């Protein structure tokens, strides 16, 4: 019996690979868009515009305080009521982009705020504009601090992408869910699902750890 199911599972591998591709598509687009948006929000959060800081801060808090599943349902079911019809894939990407941007925003703001104020003072004293300061002095230094947690966040977001299977997006998790209806060997099917996620996530986790180690070695002496 077990052998029979195993064979069936092997035959389903193409289906799983399509699901894997979908996971990569959803996560990938959301990560790119989320990173761009997250950097913009992060720079604002670390800046001086009090009103904008608070608005973004409040939104980030809302997103961090509610389950992603609920956010996905809200984007998918409620936006149509406001007139925006969305299919599952775009709704997922929007929800995941928003989630990514919120977490990345905090990482970026934290990195920027950790740069010693003396750097900003030196740049101000020589007359550099805020834009130039950010671009040439602050961000290049902040990137070293931002990169390890940023990559770590990417891993979390790939895992979070599994939640969009709940609204029908055919990612790896959904493929598993569909397959297990035909092949009732949960351990084998979801073992395969796990392996597929592991293949994507584990290298990213190792990358994040390596980046973190390298970052703590390169410090300037005074």
């Amino acid at each position, binding site marked *: 019996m077990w052998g029979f199911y195993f064979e069936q599972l092997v035959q389903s591998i193409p289906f799983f690979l399509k699901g894997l591709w979908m996971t990569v598509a959803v996560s990938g687009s959301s990560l790119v868009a989320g990173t761009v948006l997250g950097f913009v929000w992060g720079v604002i959060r670390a800046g001086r515009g009090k009103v904008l800081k608070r608005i973004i801060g409040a939104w980030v808090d809302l997103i961090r305080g509610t389950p992603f599943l609920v956010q996905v349902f809200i984007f998918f079911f409620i936006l149509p009521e406001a007139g925006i019809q969305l299919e599952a894939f775009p709704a997922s990407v929007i929800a995941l982009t928003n989630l990514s941007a919120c977490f990345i925003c905090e990482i970026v703001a934290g990195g920027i705020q950790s740069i010693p104020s003396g750097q900003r*003072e*030196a740049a101000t004293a020589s*007359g550099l*504009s805020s834009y*130039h300061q950010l671009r040439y002095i602050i961000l290049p230094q902040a990137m070293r601090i931002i990169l390890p947690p940023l990559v770590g966040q990417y891993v979390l977001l790939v895992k979070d992408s599994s939640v969009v299977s709940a609204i029908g997006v055919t990612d790896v998790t959904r493929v598993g869910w569909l397959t297990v209806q035909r092949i009732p060997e949960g351990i084998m099917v979801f073992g395969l699902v796990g392996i597929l996620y592991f293949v994507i996530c584990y290298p990213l986790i190792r990358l994040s750890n390596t980046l973190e180690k390298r970052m703590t070695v390169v410090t300037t002496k*005074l």
Partner: protein
Amino acid sequence: MIRFSNVNKWFGDLHVLKDINLSVEGGEVVVVCGPSGSGKSTLIRCINRLEPIQQGELVVDNMKVHDKKTNMTKIRAEIGFVFQQFNLYPHMTAMGNVTIAPMKVRKMKKSEAEKLGREILERVGLGNKADAYPAQLSGGQQQRVAIARGLCMRPKIMLFDEPTSALDPEMINEVLDVMRVLAREGMTMIVVSHEMGFAREVANRVVFMDEGQIIEVAPPNDFFKNPRTERAKLFLSKILTH
């Protein structure tokens, strides 16, 4: 060139600068000294508005620094500031550090800026370190790069906030040497420092501050030999006997 008129500043409830009146002419070298907490660093940080003032007038090179509407970029381009902690940009080489402001604020072309950078780095004795990163330089070398960074903007005024206080004793002189040359060349300088030898050699005037007020202003010989106020006498007795 620089004029403080009845300047007052508070940090919250703390009154850190009290009724400051001071004029510094072009080409003058002024050394500001006093016990810690006397407000001397705050005083020079007001000149390029790293610290704002709440009362009084501060006019630098005919521009009103106290006026919130004044565009500080122009003023700051004419003032070089050297920090106690150097504040060099660690991710840029010495050349990078000295050329970034000329390129972005004075809009110089890269080749022009690098030529200027090399010239100034030579002047401070670090021509061969143009491609070194701050982490590869000693404290004294880093501070000289910081001075070069200020000089590359061809400023009218150079401000120094305790430039040698964070340095190991062997390196203090290499920095003071650069500053002595600048003074002799006629640069307008205000230096917050405890280096009395330097003050005696190059300063036109010494400003002694205590608890936010200017207590005494005098040429160095007069100040060191015949201090007029009790507080100045007390301060001098403490620092000259160590």
